[in-house]
């Protein structure tokens, strides 16, 4: 009986690693952070630290609020008033909530005014608007993507393209989802007209702090030394974030993850996580604040920041299509050093495009 030899292989994943410096003129860090529009979780690992310094804490506490609208009919995103007050002025970040990208219809509104609808076959055929089959269809075409630029002249209110989409969403498909919404820089004020018509609630990002004791971590002296390979480093960061033991003791079969060699032990470390619909602008402020923090002398001269994107978002970096095969991970990990250098690791799952 023959069995396939690929059983020991895990599903495909992509890891892009980059080393650069914040002072380097050609650094793309700002663009890379900006392009991951929908951030679900930001976690920071501060070694040899038991409580966050006040400046860093204030950044965590001043992350933008976001709004959850229950059962929003998607045609409301085409409302003329909403387009003029929110979409054309500043950046709107919106993604459907509690919809699975491989099962349901998902909606995303990116800051550049791109509305992306990821629809199953029946919904796409009912909607009757131009779209493309998903890049990740297997044998049958069962998922389609409708991508519309709301700032384009063809989609101006009253135009043919606009009318067709509006009619489709209003009378033919009548798509309704729970929706997470945020606006920069206007905040809730720009979205008030839309929010007031439906059942909405404002949410603050949830912050949680854990102090870890006797944490074994890779000996990251400076960014020049090739301390450990990216895969093992990412596994270790994930284990710390998920509170998984890296002891690999002989009596426990739960985890065989180990800290990569060479390793050192840190007596205490602080792990801070922020969850919610987080904007790239806030992530960027956090990175700048961590750089200031690292300028002061510390026992350990590095900080690790990990930003996770939404697993069920129709788009990941830029407007690239994203889907879920076994896991919908799209995240990046930024390891910052005292000398303003950094290691950036961008990772995606099987059904995703290469990160920038």
């Amino acid at each position, binding site marked *: 009986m*023959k*069995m396939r030899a690929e059983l020991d292989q895990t599903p495909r994943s992509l890891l892009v690693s980059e080393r650069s410096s914040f002072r380097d003129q050609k650094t793309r860090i700002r663009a890379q952070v900006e392009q991951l529009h929908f951030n679900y979780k930001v976690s920071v690992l501060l070694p040899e630290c038991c409580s966050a310094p006040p400046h860093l804490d204030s950044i965590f506490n001043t992350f933008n609020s976001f709004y959850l609208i229950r059962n929003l009919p998607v045609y409301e995103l085409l409302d003329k008033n909403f387009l003029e007050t929110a979409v054309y002025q500043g950046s709107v970040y919106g993604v459907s909530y509690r919809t699975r990208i491989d099962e349901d219809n998902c909606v995303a509104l990116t800051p550049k005014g791109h509305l992306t609808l990821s629809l199953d*076959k029946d919904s796409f055929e009912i909607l009757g608007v131009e779209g493309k089959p998903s890049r990740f269809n297997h044998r049958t075409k069962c998922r389609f993507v409708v991508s519309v630029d709301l700032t384009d002249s063809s989609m101006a209110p009253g135009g043919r393209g606009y009318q067709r989409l509006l009619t489709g969403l209003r009378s033919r498909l009548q798509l309704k989802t729970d929706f997470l919404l945020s606006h920069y820089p206007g905040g809730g004020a720009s979205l008030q007209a839309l929010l007031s018509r439906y059942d909405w609630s404002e949410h603050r990002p949830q912050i949680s702090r854990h102090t870890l004791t006797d944490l074994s971590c890779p000996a990251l002296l400076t960014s020049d030394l090739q301390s450990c390979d990216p895969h093992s480093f990412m596994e270790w960061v994930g284990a710390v974030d998920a509170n998984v033991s890296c002891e690999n003791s002989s009596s426990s079969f739960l985890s065989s993850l180990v800290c990569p060699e060479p390793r050192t032990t840190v007596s205490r470390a602080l792990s801070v996580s922020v969850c919610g619909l987080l904007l790239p602008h806030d992530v960027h402020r956090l990175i700048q604040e961590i750089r200031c923090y690292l300028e002061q002398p510390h026992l350990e001269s590095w900080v690790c920041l990990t930003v996770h994107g939404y697993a069920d978002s129709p788009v990941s970096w830029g407007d690239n299509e994203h889907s879920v095969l076994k896991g919908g991970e799209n995240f990046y990990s930024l390891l910052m050093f005292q000398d303003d250098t950094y290691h950036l690791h961008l990772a995606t799952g*099987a059904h995703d495009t290469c990160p920038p």
Partner: protein
Amino acid sequence: MSVFMDLNLSYTNDKSRMQSLIETAAHLGYSTVAINYTYELTIKKSKVPVPTPIKDLMEKLPIVQGRCRPIRVLNRLTVVMSEQCHFKKTGREFSAYDLLAVQPATEKLFHVACFTLDVDIICISVTEKRPFIIKRSPVNGAVERGIMFEVSYSAAIRDSTMRRYTIANAVSLVETCKGKNLILSSAAEKPLELRGPYDISNLGLLFGLSDGDAKEAVSSACRSVVLHGETRKTAGGIVHTMKCCSETPDQQEAPPADCEAPAAKRAKQLTE
């Protein structure tokens, strides 16, 4: 991809067990399930079981975990064919079921099922050592007609010998059908025998399916089966007829003899 489905939950008379089966399936993330009634064609004078209406089984269907819709429950009949016997293609009793499946026991019956029988699913036996060699020709014939092959996994959970048979039979089927037109389902009798859709997709890898095929076996392929079942009741998949319930008994009575209005033709009963 489409929603996850488990098209084989064994029916038992125990109502509370059926309810907990459906609740567990909804909790695990299945959006559609089918309750399977088994019918042995060989037992004399055995009648085709009548499916219990879903409303009687569960008043309020549970919401699928992570979504906002309730789980959808279908009725399915599996006809176990073990001898040469007549399978009524258009039996009225079968029309009460959304899905129709057969489990052939011999190669000849498998051949008949693949080429002629009007069914949605052909079940591959997992509880015995390969009863017959599955040949490529009938499998291709069934694929052309849109019939799916089913492999159940709960037998593998119950017993280690069954585990060997399940894997062996599934691997030989996958080699023949090249991963197309295959669905994986539980045949669960108890809630503990159900597994989540991503776990079953991983089980598909053991059977020799690729990542994409394994995920399709729990989602898109099941959707095709359900649509195939719906089209069985239609004319060519286009025309759908539905019996309109009679509005009032008065309409069917003859007009009274002393009626003042002149005798008029009785209005035709409209069937839409």
